């Protein structure tokens, strides 16, 4: 019954999709542009998540400091927060009149909203917890004595990190990055709020689905299915390559 609960909406999409027009819809300019932009945005978002998330995960897993529980809660927040709220929060912080955004605008004439960068930031924020949680869990599962052994064998901190910790963490990092990437690929609310919706600049695949549904709701199901297919491919690949020991 649980499986049916998940499968039913998917079956609905399949039943409603106008298959005769599928090729035309998928190969249309706007779809291809959205596809390319989605891959770009989600890839950059996953990279940003890794860059910011791995050091944070390391600190959370290895350093005891006051407020660690609070920081960990804060990190998980984007996971449970409605994406639209994340978008509003980003506007309040980095928007043209936001706390930091106003200063960026004044000092550098830099405006984030309505840019591809904003789409990357919004999707990165929403998918960030997945990287941190996966990497932190991975760090905790590493036998600390292996790292100590490496030090005894003469490894510097950097060599230890590069040659022992990161390789041991590899599968978890890959799993976290793939999940974050898939989440970024499907991001809608925060992107729409913070980055807007403009073809070629901020219109990612989910936003293209939304815009197409205004004029061609049945055609939009084809695009939606394409999105589902990509997400499904990620999950299946994950299960096969990483989630099985």
């Amino acid at each position: 019954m649980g499986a049916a609960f998940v499968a039913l909406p998917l079956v609905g999409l399949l039943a409603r999709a106008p298959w005769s027009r599928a090729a035309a819809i998928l190969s249309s300019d706007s779809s291809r542009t959205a596809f390319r932009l989605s891959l770009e945005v989600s890839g950059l978002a996953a990279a940003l998540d890794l860059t910011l998330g791995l050091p944070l995960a390391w600190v959370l897993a290895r350093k005891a400091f006051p407020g660690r529980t609070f920081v960990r809660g804060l990190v998980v927040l984007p996971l449970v927060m409605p994406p639209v709220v994340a978008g509003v929060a980003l506007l309040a912080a980095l928007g043209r009149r936001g706390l930091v955004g106003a200063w960026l605008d004044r000092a550098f004439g830099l405006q984030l909203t309505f840019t591809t960068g904003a789409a990357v930031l919004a999707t990165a924020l929403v998918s960030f917890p997945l990287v941190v949680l996966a990497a932190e869990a991975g760090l905790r599962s590493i036998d600390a004595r292996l790292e100590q052994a490496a030090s005894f064998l003469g490894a510097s901190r950097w060599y230890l990190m590069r040659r022992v910790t990161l390789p041991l963490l590899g599968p978890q990092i890959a799993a976290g990055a793939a999940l974050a990437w898939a989440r970024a690929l499907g991001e809608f609310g925060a992107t729409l709020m913070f980055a807007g919706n403009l073809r070629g600049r901020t219109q990612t695949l989910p936003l293209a689905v939304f815009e197409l549904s205004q004029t061609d709701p049945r055609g939009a199901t084809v695009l939606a299915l394409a999105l589902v297919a990509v997400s499904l491919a990620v999950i299946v690949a994950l299960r096969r390559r990483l989630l099985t020991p």
Partner: protein
Amino acid sequence: MSLRVDVALQREGFSLEAAFDASVDETVALLGPNGSGKSTVVSILAGLIRPDSGHVELDGIRLDDVPPEERPVGVLFQDLLLFPHLSALENVAFPLRARGAAKVGARRRAAEALERFGMAGRAGARPRDLSGGEAQRVALARTLITEPRLLLLDEPTSSLDVAARARFRRLLSETLRTFPGVRVLVSHDPVEAMTLADRLVVLEDGRVTQAGTPEDFRRAPRTPYAAELVGVNLFAGRLERLPDGAGRLVAAGGELTVAWPPQASDPTEDVLAVLRPADVSLHRECPEGSARNVFHGRIEEIAVEGTRARVRLGTHPALVAEVTLGSVSRLGLAEGTAAWASFKAVEVAVLLPQGTSTGTLVG
């Protein structure tokens, strides 16, 4: 060549003040209960912890300001701790690479080291695909690849089962015998210490409480821990087959009957046998029953520990028995009086030199 250690260190809730020496012609065992500061000493020797004061001197050179990667120290860890994501060859090359050696040279030297340990054919294998014995050889090769002048064995056998322990001990004693430098064994296992080391240094609560040969300890243990340490009856000698199928161990101090290990050849030299004091029964009269080993001798010492007493007997061989205080009073045992001691042949754990063993051994 020698090692001189004299260090002090103060941490929250713990202080260490340890001084001991080790010379090149002996293996020193650093023994102590958990939390006694053994692993801190290991870290200090390896250079990962800097003592508050004092020195570590190897071959007359002070190591205090030498960083870990430049110290001529090789460590063999409990559980070996081979890196699971690296091949056997990469594991062995790791210390060289960590010290900045070029890849090609490091791999060539690692391959040579593996060959010396008879592991040339397993260079590409991951640790999880190695047998226990193969993993031990790879770990030893990794420890020795930097040609250290101080070899540190950190609880090398304590997580192994009895049979594997005996096999590894054989490999270790060979390694120790041929190693051209100072050898220090860190352990909390008295059997391991007494079979591998020539001299014991006992560390308790961060202090060295006693140092000396096992015989020194047996004659005059200075702390309860040390007494317990040598409380194990350990015999060494030649194993012969008896006509009835049992075995006889001819040790320096006397002979005892043991169960014949199926793998043993007749006779076998250099056999070790261990007997727990609690397995030795004491009697006023010559006991009747199934016990094959019955000895008569004077009670040299009765040491009371809680509700139990350790009784040292001047039998041949000398024995230590552990009995309840109730037995002491019921049998009227007293120092200087004579008593009978008995134990069954199967209570004696026999350790064969070729790496097989029988019986149960509680270390």
